[in-house]
């Protein structure tokens, strides 16, 4: 039972509050991703769980035990650092065994765990080398090995793949996910790459300016973005967030309208859901087109708005063309203009 719970956790440095009332739970055996733009407080949250920082207020629980006042060692967790934190003067084997030796695990046990870990990660041939003699991916594996060999059920990772090239990153993230499931680890994984988050997470916590923007499964975040920010952050290319103007309002009669103000909300639609239509829809002119192989990205301008859409294959469209764009009601997300909060579908669809 290795769940992690944060209750009303706040963290300030001097007068600046970096984390505001963070509440969440990561269930046993789950992989939770902390996602968000740079500086939003992901690393800080992770370091609070690790015990490398102390919360200004609030409680951190691991296994239903309040660990807020315990130093890192006593929290029974392992951590993989962004720059791997490998000791340059020690060999791979010594690096992996560093913690076990510190905790005086018996020699025989050390040997067995080293072998298991090395086999698991395919490091058996490199045990005698120093970190400088390894490739980036191999170093990453050694860092993983260090956290696996501890055989604790909670593992924290802070942007573990950010130093690898794109292809390797994809391989390694699959490998991490497979390991996590195989060893039934509870893992909290920090990244600012939404693709990485979507592909490996059981649950994602999207953060912004020290607050949780949304907590849910990858599908939740994609299909039911709770805020305009989430909608824009998740998905590539990002969701179009439009401010309804008179043209949009008149083109799509299903949009709710209140007598006082027509634009109390923002309208979100994913690029792949924008359709090119012969007759109905809003008028727009094509600004640029980009051919990406499987599909093409088309950026259009309609009045004050910029709308991005994707079409399959190579589109027979060039800059300067005029298009009619149709936005189907089932693909529309509405967000409150002031707060950015999602307007519940049931609320506005019924009203219209």
């Amino acid at each position, binding site marked *: 039972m290795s769940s992690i719970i944060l209750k009303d956790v706040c963290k300030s440095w001097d007068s600046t509050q970096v984390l505001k009332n963070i509440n969440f739970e990561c269930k046993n055996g789950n992989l939770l991703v902390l996602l968000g733009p740079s500086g939003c407080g992901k690393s800080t949250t992770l370091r609070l769980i690790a015990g490398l920082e*102390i919360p200004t207020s609030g409680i951190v629980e691991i296994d239903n035990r309040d660990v*807020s*006042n315990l*130093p890192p060692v006593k929290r029974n967790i392992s951590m993989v650092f962004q720059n791997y934190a490998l000791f340059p003067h020690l060999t791979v084997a010594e690096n992996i065994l560093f913690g076990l030796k510190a905790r005086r695990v018996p020699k025989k046990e050390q040997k067995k765990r080293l072998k298991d870990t090395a086999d698991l990660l395919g490091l058996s041939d490199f045990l005698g080398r120093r970190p400088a003699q390894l490739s980036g991916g191999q170093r990453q594996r050694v860092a993983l090995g260090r956290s696996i060999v501890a055989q604790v059920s909670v593992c924290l990772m802070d942007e573990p793949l950010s130093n690898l090239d794109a292809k390797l990153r994809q391989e390694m993230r699959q490998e991490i996910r497979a390991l996590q499931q195989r060893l039934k680890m509870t893992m909290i994984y920090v990244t600012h790459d939404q693709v990485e988050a979507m592909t490996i997470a059981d649950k994602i916590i999207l953060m912004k300016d020290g607050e949780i923007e949304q907590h849910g499964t990858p599908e939740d975040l994609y299909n039911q973005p709770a805020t305009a920010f989430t909608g824009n952050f998740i998905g590539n290319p990002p969701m179009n967030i439009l401010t309804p103007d008179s043209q949009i309002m008149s083109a799509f009669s299903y949009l709710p309208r209140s007598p006082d103000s027509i634009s109390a909300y923002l309208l979100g639609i994913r690029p792949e859901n924008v359709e090119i239509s012969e007759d109905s829809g809003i008028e727009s002119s094509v600004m640029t087109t980009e051919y990406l192989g499987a599909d093409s990205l088309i950026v259009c301008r309609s009045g004050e708005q910029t709308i991005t859409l994707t079409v399959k294959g190579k589109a027979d469209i060039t800059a300067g063309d005029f298009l009619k764009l149709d936005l189907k009601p089932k693909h529309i997300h509405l967000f409150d203009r002031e707060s950015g909060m999602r307007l519940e579908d049931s609320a506005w669809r019924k009203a219209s």
Partner: protein
Amino acid sequence: MKFREFDAEKFIVTTGAWMLGGIWLLPLVFAFWSAFHPAEFSTNFELFAPLTIDNFVRAWSYAPFPRYLLNTFVLVTLILAAQFVLCTLAAYGFARFDFFGKNVVFALVLLQLMIMPEVLLVENYRTISSMGLLDTIPAIGLPYMASAFGIFLLRQSFKSIPKELVEAAQVEGVSAIGILWKVYIPLAKSTYIAYGLVSVSYHWNNFLWPLVVTSSVNSRPLTVGLAIFGAPESGVDWSIITAATVMTMSPLLVAFILFQRQFVQSFMHSGIK
């Protein structure tokens, strides 16, 4: 409540650091105490002992300290200026040009890092004497003007300058000396400052070699003047000797306290090989 064990440790560390720091300052505090108090208080630590600058006035009048100070100042300036010119040229040569025998010559230059001119004072005295320079300020400075340490530091710093900058200047038709002047020297500014501070403090404090080659007030630097003044045979009062000591070290001490950060960083910089 939180992390009580951590706090206790930090407290111990802080106290330890402060105590050690206090012990380390003690000799200096003591020197200042006795320099600013009448002789009868020099070993008698009463909080309200009368302060005086009499010791300084007397030290000043007993020996030509203004002249010593001037000599030291001229000496340090002369050495630094010569070092900057000689070391810059040599470092530029070693850093940028491939010439016949370069590595051997460089190794020979580095020999001076280990065997400094003062170690060879017997023969160097002979050389200076045969040049007819005994008892002059240049005599004190000459052996140090080409410094392997300076060449080494500047060469390192020159070598770390991006090649593109040099090539860009080359394309614009800047001459070799122009490149040195416009690219290398400005970009190595921090090294010059670091080396300058290290060199000034070294030569301000240097003693044995100046002692050997000087024999009159005309060329003696402060350190030698102080040594002669403070010699037991001179029979001068302890308080006055400390006043003279404080006078000797205070220019550097004041500079150090004002530019503490730069000093420490310069020494760090000069130590990273």
